[in-house]
């Protein structure tokens, strides 16, 4: 059973009944789900969780929806793998990767959408909607297909064909909006007020966002019921960043782990870095930006949870970094070459920023760190396609192959700059 109790304003603390609303009527602050932790205590144990399925639904009692309404496509409980080769490359003793590329639609968005669609069904919505350039749309479409709900997806009209197909294959109503990102933002905000649809990250956002806590739950459980020393998390709206930390804190509140001392570090692309820029300037007030980066899954210039992400950094003694497009591509390649994980651009941002955080001393070499890899690389192949290993092109003859291989090995053994790759 769910222990959700009310929606509470994150600014003024006013409470509201659980409904499809997202902002406080008094101060317009964002609403967040409040739980009855007293009732949870003792009923949610390590044993009760461990007895659950190997998906995020093992934490069903901690989610703000009735599990009877779930649309289960097998999301969550993704691997937490030790990354010794990447650790050595970036200068850490102990590094773990939370590999969320292996979710059903290959990104962490399956977590938030799982919760949003369950709650939407519980509210009685028959249609679900979102505005997205990629991962979120893929996940919403897949969940809608599985549930039989109507689905409306709004996309900018300049979106690459591959990203359109990734949603279109599930046969949603796809709406290409003629206009800028700001126009799509404005249109969808207005539509959420006039159409009886569950817009996953607008009117059901308080529930949607809670799905990200499962990343914190899983990491703590997979580490043997404890929180790590540091986390490096990609930031778009900033919600994922704050909710991972909330997951650790709630586990502590329930007595499942010790009080966490985890320092939270955020990663952004230089071409869209409102949160990191504000952190580096020492303020909690970010200035919205116009995104210009290859990391389009993180391209949110006006992050709804930016202020709360900055507060989380402040409270945990964490910080933030940013990576250029070149550093992002290097990060993707480094992750692939050392740990066998092909990440989309957001993972490149995380790895590049992790490296810079260790280099700058913000994260110490001794600090046990978890880096969150949130989406798979096949979604953004164009980011690295001109910058990966060249194939050996040979006819089907052994001696020609052996000759070409020897030549490749000779070239690889030459000092950098002495010959072609």
């Amino acid at each position, binding site marked *: 059973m769910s222990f959700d109790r009310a929606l509470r304003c994150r600014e003024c603390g006013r409470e509201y009944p659980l409904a499809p609303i997202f*902002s406080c009527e008094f*101060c317009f602050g964002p609403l967040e789900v409040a739980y009855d932790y007293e009732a949870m205590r003792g009923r949610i144990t390590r044993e009760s969780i461990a007895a659950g399925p190997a998906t995020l639904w093992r934490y069903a009692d901690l989610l703000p929806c009735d599990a009877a309404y779930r649309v289960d496509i097998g999301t969550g409980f993704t691997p937490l793998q030790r990354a010794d080769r990447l650790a050595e490359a970036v200068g850490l003793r102990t590094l773990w990767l939370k590999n969320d590329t292996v979710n059903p639609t290959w990104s962490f968005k399956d977590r938030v959408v799982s919760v949003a669609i369950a709650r939407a069904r519980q509210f009685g919505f028959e249609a679900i909607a979102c505005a*997205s350039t990629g991962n979120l749309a893929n996940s919403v479409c897949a969940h809608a297909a599985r549930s039989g709900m109507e689905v409306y997806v709004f996309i900018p009209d300049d979106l690459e064909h591959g990203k359109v197909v990734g949603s279109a294959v599930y046969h949603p109503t796809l709406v290409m909006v003629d206009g800028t990102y700001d126009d799509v*933002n404005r249109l*969808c*905000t207005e539509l959420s007020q006039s159409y009886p649809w569950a817009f996953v990250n607008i009117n059901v956002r308080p529930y949607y966002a809670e799905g990200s806590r499962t990343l914190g739950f899983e990491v703590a459980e997979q580490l043997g019921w404890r929180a790590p020393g540091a986390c490096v998390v990609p930031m778009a709206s900033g919600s994922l960043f704050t909710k991972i930390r909330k997951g650790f804190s709630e586990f502590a509140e329930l007595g499942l782990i010790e009080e966490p001392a985890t320092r939270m570090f955020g990663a952004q692309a230089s071409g869209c870095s409102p949160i990191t820029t504000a952190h580096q*300037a020492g303020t909690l*007030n970010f*200035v919205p930006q116009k995104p210009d980066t290859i990391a389009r899954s993180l391209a949110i210039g006006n992050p709804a949870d930016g202020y709360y992400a900055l507060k989380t950094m402040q409270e945990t003694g964490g910080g933030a970094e940013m990576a250029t497009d070149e550093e992002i591509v290097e990060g993707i390649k480094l992750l692939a070459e050392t740990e066998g994980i092909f990440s989309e651009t957001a993972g490149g941002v995380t790895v590049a920023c992790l490296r810079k955080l260790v280099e700058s001393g913000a994260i110490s070499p001794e600090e046990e760190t978890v880096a969150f890899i949130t989406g798979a690389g096949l979604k953004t192949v164009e980011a690295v396609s001109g910058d990966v290993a060249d194939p050996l092109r040979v006819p089907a003859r052994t001696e020609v192959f052996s000759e070409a291989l020897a030549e490749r090995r000779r070239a690889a053994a030459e000092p950098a700059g002495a010959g072609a790759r």
Partner: protein
Amino acid sequence: MASRRVRFTFEPELVTEPVIYRVGHLYDVVTNIRMADVDERVGWVILELSGEPAEIDRAIAWAEQQGVRVDPLAGDVVEG
């Protein structure tokens, strides 16, 4: 009569300008501030604009011409 909840973000050079006061005088809209913060780098105000939809559009367009960034209250909802 309609209302729209928005966030105004001001660059430092605009922080001292009475932009919201002027919006309310130049256009037939009611401005109702609910939350705000200003520091030396940036200022933001969350407010509700009430009036005829076309008049609200004109008021927002004018504020944007002055250099104010105007966003929906929900922030950017187009996610990756």
